[in-house]
């Protein structure tokens, strides 16, 4: 087992190197760079910038070096933990990024747990009571959840929260606690705020997971080993949880790795609407203003998370299903 994990970790290195090259090329692909983007917006405001100033800026940020050199500089610093310098925000990327990444992972995990806690029991119920009233009811509700755009749901929840309870529900913290150091009060405040993004982001995935769980379980329910267990005299609830659910749940474990990137990118619009301090809005800004080190380091970190998520899925799946070998 430990050998398997070690091999997988080693195999991640070339994967991530290739990703880093692609990321860097993609960021450089649009014409222009951060300087020309800034310049354009300055000129729009009627300001004059001399060519010497521009050349000095370009030299300061080494923007005139060949792309390979720029890439090598970036990636060698990256592996040493220096994620570069954001020209737009005039701050090291390190100071910008970590809080937001933390909150993003927090919200992603919370939404994932919310989705599963809701979708898997409903999926089980729908399969066991196939074509019953509850099955149809939850299917309709689930598809509604899938059809309503996330930002719309966010706006509705914000409106309801504000007009019915008089609380502002944007952000992750109340304004007076946002900059405060961590304390139990701040933690409680976080819990008070996190449920809205959790529900908003979670509902989108609920419908599909519900339906997949239902279909998986229906498949398993008619398998001979279920009849064997019934003939043994095992009670229905225990039987369903022990045998078919145990097997029907495997595909979810194996797709945790894919869920991370969708959860992270799926929350960008919601984060803007709800004013969340997560990675989505910052990444969008970085890409719009061609702030290459910020955007590149960001995408690299998300890629690392994704690859780690895949590894996590594989380890969990191997632990759950004895037929999967490590070799």
């Amino acid at each position, binding site marked *: 087992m430990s050998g398997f994990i070690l091999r997988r970790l080693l195999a991640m290195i070339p994967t991530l190197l290739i990703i880093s090259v692609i990321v860097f090329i993609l960021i450089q692909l649009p014409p222009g760079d951060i300087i020309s983007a800034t310049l354009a917006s300055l000129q729009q405001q009627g300001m004059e910038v001399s060519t010497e100033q521009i050349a000095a800026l370009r030299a300061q940020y080494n923007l005139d070096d060949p792309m390979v050199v720029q890439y090598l500089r970036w990636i060698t610093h990256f592996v040493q933990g220096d994620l570069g310098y954001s020209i737009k925000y005039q701050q090291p990327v390190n100071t910008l990024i970590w809080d937001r990444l933390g909150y993003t992972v927090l919200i992603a995990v919370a939404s994932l747990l919310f989705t599963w806690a809701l979708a898997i029991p409903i999926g089980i119920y729908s399969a066991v009571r196939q074509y019953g009233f509850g099955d149809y009811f939850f299917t309709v509700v689930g598809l509604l959840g899938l059809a309503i755009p996330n930002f719309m749901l966010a706006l509705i929840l914000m409106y309801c929260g504000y007009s019915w309870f008089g609380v502002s529900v944007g952000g992750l913290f109340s304004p007076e606690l946002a900059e405060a150091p961590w304390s139990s009060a701040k933690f409680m405040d976080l819990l008070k705020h996190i449920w809205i993004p959790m529900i908003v982001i979670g509902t989108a995935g609920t419908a599909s997971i519900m339906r997949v769980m239902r279909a998986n379980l229906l498949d398993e329910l008619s*398998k*001979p*080993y279920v*009849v*064997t*267990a*019934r*003939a*043994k*005299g*095992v*009670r229905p609830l225990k039987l369903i949880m*022990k*045998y078919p659910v*145990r*097997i029907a749940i495997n595909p979810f474990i194996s797709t945790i790795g894919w869920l991370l990137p969708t959860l992270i990118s799926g929350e960008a619009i919601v984060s803007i609407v709800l004013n969340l301090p997560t990675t989505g809005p910052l990444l969008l800004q970085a890409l719009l203003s061609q702030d290459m080190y910020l955007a590149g380091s960001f995408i690299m970190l998300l890629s690392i998370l994704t690859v780690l998520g895949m590894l996590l899925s594989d380890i969990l799946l191997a632990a*759950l*299903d*004895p*037929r999967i070998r490590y070799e």
Partner: protein
Amino acid sequence: MSQEQILSINNLTVEFGSELGTQTALHGISFVMQRGRTTAIVGESGSGKSVTAYSTLRLIEAPGRITAGEILFRPTGLPVFDILALRPDSDALYNLRGNQIAMIFQEPMTALSPVHTIGNQVMEAILTHRPVGKAEAFMQATDMLRRVGINNAAERMHQYPFEFSGGMRQRVVIAMALVCQPELLICDEPTTALDVTIQAEILALIRDLKDEFNSSVLFITHDLGVVAQIADDVVVMHQGRILESGSVRQVLKSPLHPYTRGLLGAMPGLPGLQPRRHDKARRLATVNDSQGTTDFGQHPLISLNDGRRVALPQAKIDEALKP
């Protein structure tokens, strides 16, 4: 129901609803099983033999439905009761399944859960029905595995089904069924999925364990060769009806019903021993060749003096009985 009868099925009717209307799988069949004997139900696919077996444990699921009849069961030393009258969630029904009546299935490859150890699944039968702890259940399960011929039983308890061959898996399924020492063992084509040498071993094993545990066996099969090896009594089924029943000697040696003769004629045997055929003498006869689409179903069963029953008009029976 006499003391010697362990199971008496009366007028059992099972229907399956579908979009095209209701299909009747069993048209009110009746037969009795004698205690300590092996009764075989033979018939083609769709004759209702598995439905009969599943009904006995109330395992028929929607869209299937038991619409009429009774299944009287008499465990040793206990009063007789009607299995079909038990409430679906009653303790009596769950005590029946796996404890008083156990079942062995056709497909050893899929009858075991792939993600649970053999030990877990065999122990589950004990833990469900006996007030014993895990250690004791482990002992009993290991012992049972040993008795069905699995070597290194204690180690193999921790293995998964995919680490067993087909024949070994069927032994595990048999161990699982017998571990609570049921009075009645239902075998639903237990050797159909196995190759012939393994078949013989499994049949011998079932026969030995039946004697050892003093159980009665209801054996479902389409293979008359297997019937000859294992059964004491035979029930011949066709399209949800019983056409003939009697001792294995009566039914196989001197079948009265033309369908039973057709079944016997469709058995592969040595060349020359085959019944004469009117065409293409090299091909094996099928039941259809000899019987066509004759409808056998409409005559009530008539009991003969020698104990056998046959669904034919009296005149035809007399004719068939003539030497």
